[in-house]
C-alpha cells in the first residue's frame, strides 16, 4: 500500500488561516481568553451574567484587562487568574482541543490565541501566573517555523502569590508590516474599543474592567423596550442539542439610527452578530427587506452551552454557521417573532392618508427601556400591541375641492384677498352653522 503525505505544515497556520480574521478581531479573541480565565476561575455561568440579577459582583473582585497597541507592539495584560502549568503543557499551545481538555465558555476551537499571535507579529512573550505557579514562553515565529517539531519551549516561573495578582501577560513584538501599517494608519485602538464595547457588553463592568490604551471601555448594552399595557416584547425559548436558546424581539426606546436596528446574536454571552439586517436573520427572505421605518426594531438571540462547540458560531466568532440545526430552528422562530413587529412599525406609515396613526406613533415614542433579562424571564409569547381605548371623536376632517372663482368671491366679500383656501372653507362652514343650524 502506498501513502500520500497528509502532513500538517506550519506555514499554513502562520500565513493562511490568519487571513480570514481582522486585526481587531484577533485582539478581541485575546480579550475573550482573559474573560474565559476569569469565568473559569470564579465558576461564573454565562446565564448568570446575562440573566442573573443586576447586583454587583459582591465578594468577587472584578478582573482587569489592559490592552495597549502601538506600531511596535500589542500587549494584553490581565488579572483574570492565569493559566495553570498543566494546561500550558498539554492544551494552550495545541491547535484544537483534546476531548479531555477543560473548555472555557468563549474559547471553542482552540485556535484564537495562536491565530492572533501569528497574525500580529513575529515574536511573542507570554507570562502567566496563577496564585501558586507560573510559566513563561518566548518564541520567534520564523525560527520556530523552520523546525519540523511541533513543540514550544516553556520555562516554569513562580506563581503570583495572590489571587488578586494572578493573570496573564501577552506581548507581541516585531509586528508584521501590514499590521504595523494599519496601526500607523490610525483608528485601530478606537476600533478595538468600540468592538469590545459592543461584543462583550454582558462581561464588561460585570466581571472585568477593560481598558484600551488607558481608556476605559464601557459596555454598550443592546436596548430593548416595552410600554406598560401598550407594547409587550416577543419572547421564545427552547433547548436543543445541549444548547439553550433565548429569543426576544421588540421596539427599542428612544431615537434610533437604522445602523442599530436588527437582530443581535450572542453565543455564550459574546455578541457574534450585531444589528443584522440581511438574509442571515431572515430579512428580504422570510421577512421584508429592511427599510429605515424599521429602525426601532431590535431582536436578540442568545445561544448558550457548556460545550461551546455546539454553538452556531464560526471560528472567527463574527458569523454564524448556517448549517447549525439549532440556528435553523432559532432563525425560523426569529422570523415568526419579527413579523408582527414589522407590521406594527409599518402601520406608522399607512397608504391611506386619512388613517389615524397618532396612537401608534405615540406608542413607539412611549417605549421605555426594559432588560433582556426581564423579557426572557416570562413565558413565550408573541409581540403585542394594545391600542389605547378610542375616545369618542369630537372632531373630524372636512376636505373638499372648490372652484377658485368661488373662493375669490368669498375673499372679495369678506375683503380678505389673501385668505387661504382652508380658511375660506372654515369661514363658510362656521357661517352656515351659525346662521342655519339651531343651537342644541
Amino acid at each position, binding site marked *: 500500500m502506498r501513502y500520500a503525505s497528509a502532513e500538517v505544515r506550519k506555514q499554513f497556520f502562520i500565513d493562511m488561516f490568519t487571513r480570514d480574521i481582522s486585526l481587531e478581531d484577533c485582539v478581541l479573541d485575546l480579550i475573550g481568553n482573559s474573560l474565559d480565565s476569569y469565568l473559569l476561575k470564579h465558576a461564573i455561568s454565562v446565564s448568570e451574567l446575562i440573566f442573573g440579577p443586576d447586583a454587583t459582583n459582591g465578594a468577587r473582585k472584578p478582573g482587569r484587562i489592559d490592552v495597549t497597541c502601538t506600531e511596535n507592539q500589542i500587549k494584553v495584560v490581565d488579572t483574570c487568574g492565569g493559566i495553570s502549568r498543566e494546561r500550558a503543557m498539554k492544551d494552550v499551545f495545541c491547535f484544537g482541543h483534546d476531548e479531555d481538555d477543560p473548555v472555557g465558555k468563549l474559547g471553542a476551537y482552540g485556535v484564537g490565541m495562536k491565530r492572533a499571535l501569528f497574525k500580529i507579529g513575529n515574536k511573542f512573550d507570554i507570562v502567566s501566573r496563577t496564585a501558586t505557579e507560573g510559566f513563561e514562553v518566548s518564541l520567534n515565529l520564523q525560527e520556530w517555523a523552520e523546525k519540523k517539531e511541533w513543540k514550544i519551549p516553556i520555562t516554569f516561573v513562580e506563581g503570583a502569590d495572590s489571587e488578586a495578582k494572578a493573570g496573564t501577560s501577552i506581548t507581541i513584538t516585531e509586528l508584521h508590516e501590514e499590521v504595523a501599517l494599519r496601526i500607523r494608519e490610525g483608528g485601530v485602538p478606537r476600533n478595538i474599543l468600540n468592538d469590545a464595547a459592543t461584543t462583550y457588553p454582558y462581561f464588561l463592568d460585570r466581571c472585568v474592567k477593560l481598558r484600551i490604551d488607558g481608556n476605559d471601555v464601557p459596555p454598550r448594552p443592546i436596548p430593548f423596550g416595552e410600554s406598560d399595557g401598550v407594547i409587550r416584547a*416577543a419572547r*421564545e425559548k427552547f433547548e*436543543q442539542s445541549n444548547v439553550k436558546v433565548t429569543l426576544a424581539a421588540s421596539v427599542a426606546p428612544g431615537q434610533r439610527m437604522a445602523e442599530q436596528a436588527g437582530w443581535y446574536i450572542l453565543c455564550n454571552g459574546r455578541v457574534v452578530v450585531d444589528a443584522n439586517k440581511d438574509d442571515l436573520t431572515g430579512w428580504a*427572505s*422570510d*421577512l421584508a427587506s429592511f427599510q429605515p421605518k424599521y429602525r426601532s426594531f431590535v431582536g436578540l438571540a442568545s445561544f448558550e452551552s457548556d460545550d461551546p462547540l455546539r454553538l452556531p458560531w464560526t471560528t472567527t466568532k463574527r458569523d454564524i454557521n448556517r448549517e447549525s*440545526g439549532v440556528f*435553523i*430552528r432559532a*432563525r*425560523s*422562530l426569529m*422570523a*415568526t*417573532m419579527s*413579523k*408582527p413587529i414589522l*407590521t*406594527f412599525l409599518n402601520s406608522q406609515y399607512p397608504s391611506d392618508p386619512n388613517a389615524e396613526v397618532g396612537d401608534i406613533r405615540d406608542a413607539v415614542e412611549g417605549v421605555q427601556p426594559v432588560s433582556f433579562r426581564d423579557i426572557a424571564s416570562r*413565558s*413565550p*409569547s*408573541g*409581540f*403585542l400591541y394594545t391600542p389605547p381605548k378610542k375616545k369618542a371623536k369630537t372632531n373630524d376632517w372636512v376636505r373638499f375641492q372648490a372652484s377658485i372663482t368661488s373662493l375669490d368671491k368669498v375673499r372679495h366679500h369678506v375683503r380678505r384677498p389673501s385668505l387661504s383656501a382652508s380658511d375660506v372653507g372654515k369661514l363658510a362652514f362656521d357661517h352656515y352653522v351659525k346662521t342655519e343650524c339651531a343651537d342644541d
Partner: protein
Amino acid sequence: MIIDALQRLATAGFPIFDYQYTGFGAIYFVDFIMLHKLLGMNRLLSLEQDKSLENRVSFNKPFSCVDIKMVPASSEIPSLSRDIRHIVWLDYDGVLRKDFLSDIQSAITVLPAGSILLVTVDVEPPEDYDYKQVDPDFDSSKNVLGPKQWKRYFEHHASGYLGLGLSEGDFGKSELLQRSIEVLKGAFTRSIVARPELEFLPMFHFDYRDSHRMLTMGGMIAGPTERRLLRASTIDAAIYYRGDFGTQPFEINVPRLTRKERVYLDREMPCPDGWSPKEFDLDPDKARQYREIYRFLPAFAEILL
C-alpha cells in the same frame, strides 16, 4: 369532511373539543358554527384584517365563545398559546402569495405537537394583480396575460419552493394546481425541518371548484405520540384522507341535483359501483361522485314566506 376527520381523531384520543380553532370567519362564520355545534369546541378565534368590516363581523358573531381580532394572521399566529393545541385554517381567498407562505412558516414554527394546520388557496391564474411588479415590461393595453406572466408571478412569490428547470409551459392554467401543490408542500416541509423532533403528517388534500378552483392542503404537526394516535385512528379509512401529498388530491365534485333527486339517491346510498337511478337519468359516474360526498353535503332550503 374536516368535521368527520376531527371526529375520528377525537375517537382516537385527540382532545379535539379542547383545541382552539383559529380561522377567517368573515361575516358568515360557517366553520365556527359547525365546530362549536358538532364538536363542542369553545375556543374559537376569528381573524379579519379588513378593519372596515369590524362592525359587521362583530354583529354577525354567532356565539359568545367566538373571539374576534381585527388583525392579519401574521400578527396573531406568534401569540397563539403554546399550552393548548390548535386547529388553524388559513382559508385564503386568493392565489398563493409570499405572505401566505410566511404565515405557514410561522404556524408550523410555533404550534405545539398535535396541532392541525390547513391552508386553502385559489389555483386559478391571479387576477386583479399589477403584473408590472413581476414583469416590468408587461403592458396591460398590449399584452395578454398568459403563462409567462404567471411564471413570473410564482417566481416572485414562491421562488424558493419551485423546482428547478420549470419552463413557461409548466405555468399554463391547467398546471397551476400542480405548481401550487408543490409550493405548499415545500412550505410545510421546509418549516418543520427547523423542529427536528417533529414531523408534518399530511392529512388533507382537496381539489374543488365553487366560483374558482380551490386547493386545500393540511396536516398535523406530530411527535411520536401523535403519529401513533393518528395511525391508530380510523382516518386512513376515510375516502378523503391523503397521507401523502404526492398522491392525487381528493376531488370534490358535487353533482347538480334537485332536492327530490337527492332524497331518492340518499335512500340508495351507499350504492354499489356502476349503479345509477332508474327513476331519472344520472350517469353512473355522477352517482359514484355523489356516493363519495353525500354524507358531507349540507342540505339547503329556500323558503318563501
